[in-house]
């Protein structure tokens, strides 16, 4: 359960978020939408503790996260899998080593790592590209490597910032199906996107932001 309780984020005298209230249930899949500058990315950044709110409180499974610091931040982030529009893959290592990174951080043994990486790559349909250089893959394939990396350590939450931003409709639809598949096994999924035609076809809650506040889709 993710809760934003009257959360504000101010940069100078500009509000990116203003008294935002938001709740995502355990096991839910929801889309966060709105035109650019509405505050979608800010919500995800605050949730990953990449930024701190100027006011209000964020709770995850009832625990206040806004006070976390130091090593607790790293441990907290391991509960999330994050997917980005620009994939954020590391091009100095193979697909396998990119996907293995969260497992290495979590301290899995090399044998477990290989097994889990292969399972994750299998799920996103890239088992054959294990040894490939990520730069040699297409945009859609790179995004699927990014998703494999986000889910390989079996996080509680999967969040994505414009995961289909650079993909054609066919590929975008495949990517969304992947997210739905992970949601079906119990992962809470929150996706920021402005691809309205795509998400309107899927039957999940759509939360619309405008000028840093929720204007539609807040169930609570």
């Amino acid at each position: 359960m993710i809760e934003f309780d009257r959360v504000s984020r101010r940069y100078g005298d500009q509000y990116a978020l203003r008294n935002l209230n938001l709740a995502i249930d355990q096991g839910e899949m929801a889309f966060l939408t709105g035109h650019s500058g509405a505050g979608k990315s800010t919500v995800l950044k605050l949730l990953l503790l990449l930024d701190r709110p100027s006011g209000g409180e964020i709770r995850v499974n009832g625990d206040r996260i806004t006070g976390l610091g130091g090593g607790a931040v790293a441990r907290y982030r391991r509960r999330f899998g994050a997917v980005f529009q620009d994939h954020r893959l590391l091009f100095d290592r193979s697909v396998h080593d990119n996907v293995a990174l969260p497992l290495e951080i979590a301290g899995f043994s090399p044998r477990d790592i290989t097994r889990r990486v292969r399972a994750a790559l299998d799920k996103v349909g890239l088992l054959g590209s294990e040894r490939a250089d990520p730069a040699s893959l297409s945009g859609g394939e790179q995004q699927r490597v990014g998703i494999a990396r986000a889910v390989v350590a079996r996080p509680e939450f999967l969040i994505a910032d414009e995961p289909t931003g650079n993909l054609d409709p066919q590929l975008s639809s495949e990517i969304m199906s992947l997210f739905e598949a992970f949601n079906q096994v119990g992962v809470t999924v929150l996706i920021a996107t402005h691809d309205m035609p795509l998400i309107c076809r899927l039957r999940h809650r759509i939360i619309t932001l405008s000028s840093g506040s929720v204007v539609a889709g807040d169930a609570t």
Partner: protein
Amino acid sequence: MRAPSLPTTNLLRGWSMWQTQHQAAAVSSWKKLKARPLATFLTWLLVALSLGLPASLLLTLNNLSAVTAHFERPPQFSLLLTEATDLKGATQLKQTLEGWPGVASVELIPRDEALTQFSALTGLDALLDSLSRNPLPHTLLVAPRNAASDAESALLVQRLEGIEDVARVVLDTLWITRLEEGLRVASRWVLALGAMMLLATVLALGNTLRLTVIAREEEILVVRLIGGSMAYAWRPFLYTGLWYGLGGGVLGAMILWLFCGWLVGPVNALFVLYESQQRLQWPGMHYPLALLGVAVFLSWSTSWLACERHLRHLERH
């Protein structure tokens, strides 16, 4: 109800996880250095030379100190008597001085004996034979009591100089004292130079490591984003520093051995010429080990500083 977790199992798991992560960081940073052999070698050379130079100077200095320590040096005064003093007067003076409380022993070297010794030592027999008379005076060698302080010695010299029959008092060990003072100056000079070289190493290495951190900024950001701790993000750079130190230290020790190998022939030949039992001291084990230790410590702490400065900055943005 959850089964109580066994703390030992957790500890073991934590230990093996810590080991795995360190091993991975050590191996990956080594592979990155191996991928750029020339740059890595140049950095090693930088560390090796800037530590090897002060170490060679220190070794040279230690060799010289060992040489001076080998000189027999009972503090001893040579009393050159006046021309007018004959052997009888000299023997009388010897007996008088032996009665002085500050004097341990007195030895008389008659002028004829002195001339024989001198011609034997210098090989100038022909020249000395051509002289019409012996130019050397009778000499008394006065050894003060062992525990005599510098002030007491100075007082003794004063009293000896006051004797009518004494032309000059010569302190035989003065040149050794001068050499020792010279060596002290040189050792300070070496230490100051060494400190400057160390500082230069830290600056140059710091810059290399800073560039490494900048080049891998994206990796650090991704690692932090997916839940890597600061320690995890730092580790590859600390290992890079460790490899630079180890490589530079080993290379520095090799340079030190080469330096000694190059010097050993001429230096030992010189010792033989001076009829000294002394031989060149090799660096042994403690020099290379100390050099390695300093190199590793310096490189590691420099990489720690580079991380501290750059990664903390990165964290805030």
